[in-house]
């Protein structure tokens, strides 16, 4: 599905002393199958933007088009388009309400009007996708689960909608490092298999570097950078100017470069940086041996 955001403005509680403009003319185009990371400091409008993509908010001005249909409209076509978008808000475990994990994950598919057999198959599949064992989980009471398990159940309840566009707003906030990595790896594997669009909102730059191909940077409700993730995330000056930092591997490589090393600084992942440093090291050693 093609998502077009066209000069989108959003103001909360307009016309009151609490009025707050979260988006000021955002334009982005997202094609089917892209993996996009949205980053920006707190209060930059990331969450507002993704809620617009799911048609949950009405633009104050501008448009959000899902395959050419306005996302927030009440028409049947708009509703059908919205159903192809799955959005997990921040702390999705807050939305859990059912008596069993099965019913919780089945809520979305049931709202889609699917048959029982299909619903059961989707629940199993969704639980497996987020790394939970369906056989052990389906009868459990969600409120007795651990925080990490509740997060996964909540994400499974979105994934079970089998969206063409999956939007995750800070999905790993509050998870331990291993939980983060595993969850993202699974989401990534699913995205590649299903050919879905993945939109990830995160403060965690390493995480974005690992998952996204393209990065969109928001600050104060405006898009200040939009391009290949490697390019955007290694641009230390721009990132620092809006209060963000470069990923640690980039910071290390930049420091080495300043110390006179011949290294590329657009290596975002730790393992890439290790390879880059090893290559540069071998080169230096080689030079020294030759001159000796």
């Amino acid at each position: 599905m093609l998502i077009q955001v066209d000069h989108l403005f959003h103001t909360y509680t307009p016309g009151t002393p609490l009025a707050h403009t979260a988006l000021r003319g955002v334009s982005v185009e997202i094609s089917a199958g892209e993996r996009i990371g949205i980053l920006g400091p707190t209060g930059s409008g990331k969450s507002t933007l993704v809620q617009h993509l799911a048609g949950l908010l009405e633009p104050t001005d501008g448009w959000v088009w899902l395959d050419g249909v306005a996302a927030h409209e009440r028409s049947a076509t708009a509703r059908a388009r919205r159903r192809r978008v799955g959005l997990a808000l921040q702390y999705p475990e807050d939305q859990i309400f059912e008596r069993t994990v099965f019913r919780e994950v089945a809520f979305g598919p049931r709202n889609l009007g699917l048959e029982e057999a299909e619903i059961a198959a989707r629940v199993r599949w969704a639980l497996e996708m987020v790394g939970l064992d369906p056989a052990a989980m389906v009868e459990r009471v969600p409120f007795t689960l651990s925080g990490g398990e509740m997060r996964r159940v909540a994400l499974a309840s979105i994934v079970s909608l089998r969206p063409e566009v999956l939007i995750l707003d800070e999905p790993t906030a509050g998870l331990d490092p291993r939980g983060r990595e595993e969850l993202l790896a699974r989401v990534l594997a699913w995205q590649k298999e299903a050919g879905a669009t993945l939109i990830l909102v995160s403060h965690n730059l390493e995480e974005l570097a690992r998952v996204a191909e393209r990065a969109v940077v928001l600050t104060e409700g405006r898009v200040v950078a939009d391009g290949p993730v490697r390019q955007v995330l290694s641009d230390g000056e721009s990132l620092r100017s809006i209060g963000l930092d470069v990923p640690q591997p980039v910071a290390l490589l930049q420091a080495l470069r300043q110390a006179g090393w011949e290294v590329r600084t657009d290596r975002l992942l730790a393992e890439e940086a290790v390879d880059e440093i090893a290559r540069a090291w071998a080169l230096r050693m080689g030079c020294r041996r030759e001159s000796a």
Partner: protein
Amino acid sequence: MNMLVPGMYVAADSALHRLDPRVKMGAALLLTALPFAAPGLSSTLLISVFVVAVALLSAAPLSALLRTLRSVFWLGCFMFIFHLFTTPGQPLVAWGTMTVTREGLLAGGMQIYRLCLLVIVASLLTFTTSPSQLAHGLESLLGPLARVGLPVRELAMVLTIALRFVPVFFEEIEKITKAQRARGADVRSGRPWQRVRGWVSVFVPIFVKAFRRAEELATAMEARGFRGAQHRTRLIELRLTRRDLAAALFVLAVGAAALGMDRWM
């Protein structure tokens, strides 16, 4: 948040915001009772002019103020219809045993008008007085009752906490509603049973969260050594200034004038 919730405090710096909460609460009480105690046309006019003047002083946006009236729409309709058919007088229209009288129309209209005044006055109080100020004011006003064993300070604490969490509660409802809509829940449209299911999916998480929050708050208060209300000192000490006294006297004068107008005019 997409709306001004009735009863929400709007931080600003206006003459009304700076007034002592006790004066505001007393004035609000007087102004809500007055239209019912002084039902005449001229006194109602006087009170209306005064309320409008106060609203202008409050820096509260007029549209938001008027929007709070929506909360009593059905009550207003009910009251109007009730008066319409039960007031005896000169008949205008009659269906069988039901008669609409000229007096009924007037009385119903006046009743709605008074109800609106009441809501506006109450909203003005909460728009311009922070929850903690309200609680301090109440504590101070009810102070004498502590001697007869009423746990005034504890009540004030309960009130502060309850008021403090009203906006949080509304935000929470909005967030969960969005989350469930994203899962295809029908909260606004759809068949009745679908809507009921939609609302269940919103309210269960809200209650779960509210209980959890209450527990966390209790733990946090205990961890900070909160032990009831004995011998507590306060950050905000209420002190009546000359301006507060002047405002109180002025409100009393308006009240007296309204009552007098009905008697002698």
